[in-house]
């Protein structure tokens, strides 16, 4: 997937993304980081065709995504959003089954492939025994897994996640990230996510894209990208970058 010279503005006054270009490697985990308001979620939204860029284009499989039909695109890219809402009495299984929408025509009912896809999605997210629970009866981490299950039922090669660990406590954060990692390794899904935590980004990404003020500052492997000087430049925070036998590369803020 290629990001070619994307410019975008919410209000046609300030460019929230300014001539952004980059590349998403198929089969890898790519994480976008950067300070609040740097345009990382916007970029993800444009890559999912939720916003139409003023200039530039996203190319996937040689096609511009803006020219694709909604259902065609939904068979390629699935998105887990930061904010979600659904009627409280919806069951886990029904919400997961919504992921089959791109494969439905108006009058068709659940076919065998639909059933298999839903079963697979529930299994991957470890929700098989919770399938008949309503979503308001779930914990925050379980609820986030249901939204991931719904996107898995879409059976797409690309999975985008917009700050999937926000609002979760540390156990559930790592549970979600381990799930994402497993989906990438075992199911060969191409993952693009937005994260806030630099250490999580280092640990779970093949590639990190660093953004500031609507521009990509740098893109590369975690150990190349996460350096003292870049973190200072992006966040204005002094950090110490360390290497630990068990934890690998990590950063600790030491002052501003």
């Amino acid at each position, binding site marked *: 997937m290629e990001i070619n010279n994307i410019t975008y503005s919410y209000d046609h006054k300030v460019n929230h993304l300014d001539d952004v270009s980059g590349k998403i490697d198929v089969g890898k985990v790519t994480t976008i980081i950067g300070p609040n308001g740097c345009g990382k979620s916007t970029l993800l*939204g444009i890559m*999912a065709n*939720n916003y139409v860029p003023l200039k530039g284009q996203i190319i996937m499989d040689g096609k511009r995504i803006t020219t694709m039909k*909604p*259902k*065609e*695109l*939904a*068979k390629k*890219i*699935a*998105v887990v*959003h930061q*904010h*979600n*809402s*659904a*009627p*409280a*009495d*919806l069951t886990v299984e*029904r919400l997961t089954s*919504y*992921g089959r*929408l*791109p494969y*439905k025509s*108006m009058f068709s009912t659940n076919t065998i492939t639909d059933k298999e896809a839903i079963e697979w999605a529930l299994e991957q997210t470890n929700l098989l025994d919770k399938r008949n629970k309503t*979503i*308001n009866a779930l914990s925050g981490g379980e*609820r986030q897994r249901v939204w991931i299950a*719904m*996107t898995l039922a*879409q059976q797409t090669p690309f999975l985008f996640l917009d700050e999937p660990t926000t609002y979760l406590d540390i156990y559930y954060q790592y549970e979600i990230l381990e799930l994402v990692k497993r989906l990438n390794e075992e199911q060969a899904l191409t993952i693009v996510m937005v994260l806030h935590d630099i250490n999580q980004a280092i640990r779970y990404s093949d590639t990190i894209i660093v953004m500031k003020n609507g521009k990509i500052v740098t893109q590369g492997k975690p150990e190349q990208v996460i350096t003292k000087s870049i973190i200072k430049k992006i966040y204005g925070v002094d950090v110490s970058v360390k290497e630990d036998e068990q934890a690998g590369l990590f950063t600790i803020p030491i002052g501003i």
Partner: protein
Amino acid sequence: MNKKGLISFIIVIVLLFVATIYSVTSGSIQVTFTELVKGLITGTNNEVQVIKDLRLPRIIIAIFAGAALSVSGVLLQSVMRNPLAEPGIIGVSSGAGFMAMLMVSIFPTLFFYMPLFAFIGGALAFFLVYSFSWKSGFDPLRMILIGVAINAIFTSLSQTFNYRGSYTSSMVQDVTTSTLSMKKWADVEIMVIYGSIGLILAFLVFSWCNYLALEDKTAKNLGLNVNVARFVISAIAVLLASVATATAGLFLFVGLLVPHIGRILVGTDHKLLIPFSSLLGALLILLSDTLGRTIIAPNEIPASIIMALIGGPFLIFLLRKSDRIYGN
């Protein structure tokens, strides 16, 4: 469907059946059920003939209007993702009523196109509410306030007609108030044809309504064309509300009351909610009309007044209890 939902369906169907029979046989002329059936078949009983000409049409219209308005409420609530959206409150009904009255007053010969004018009026009111309240998303409160304002404008435009003192005011009262008396079989035809079309279309889009309960971008990423879905569902809702208003008059609250009871009894899945709301709405308006004309027979209290008497307290109850069904 769970057990509670199934029982609710059975009870409403039975009640609707019983209420229809009760309504046909009672009032200022009373017959027994056997007399009625015999009279309808043979055509020799004069009392039954009167019932057939005067009472049956209003009963059928009450049933279809109730179903139409309730389903219209369900659809508008889904499109605007707002539990308070209702054709009466946000001005769709009064827009429809006003336009129908205006056109029929100016061109009395076009009487049979009244549903079309009503549809145009309803669509205009809905468009105004929709576009004024859209500001990078729907703020539920802003939408209701704008709806109330649009409703007030169309209602007062309609009422100005009553002060012209001409023949129009008496003819027009059919539209602005909702006495269901003096309905003819021609009215039944309009209500049943357009009402059935609207109800069938509404049922066909139930899955769209379900997807719209998610966030817009979530629905979009699932491959739903959100704008098309919104437009089609809105058009069906406006059709249903307009036809009901044009033939049965203005009813407040039914589009609010019925979907909420429906959500509590059969849940938020529109596959069940839409048919259940149509049955329950039919029952409620039929009961309101039957009560209205039997309590102090031979005088009548309009069905809409009885309906508002039930709906008012329920709105208060709803505001106290809201968020129990919505949100996660």
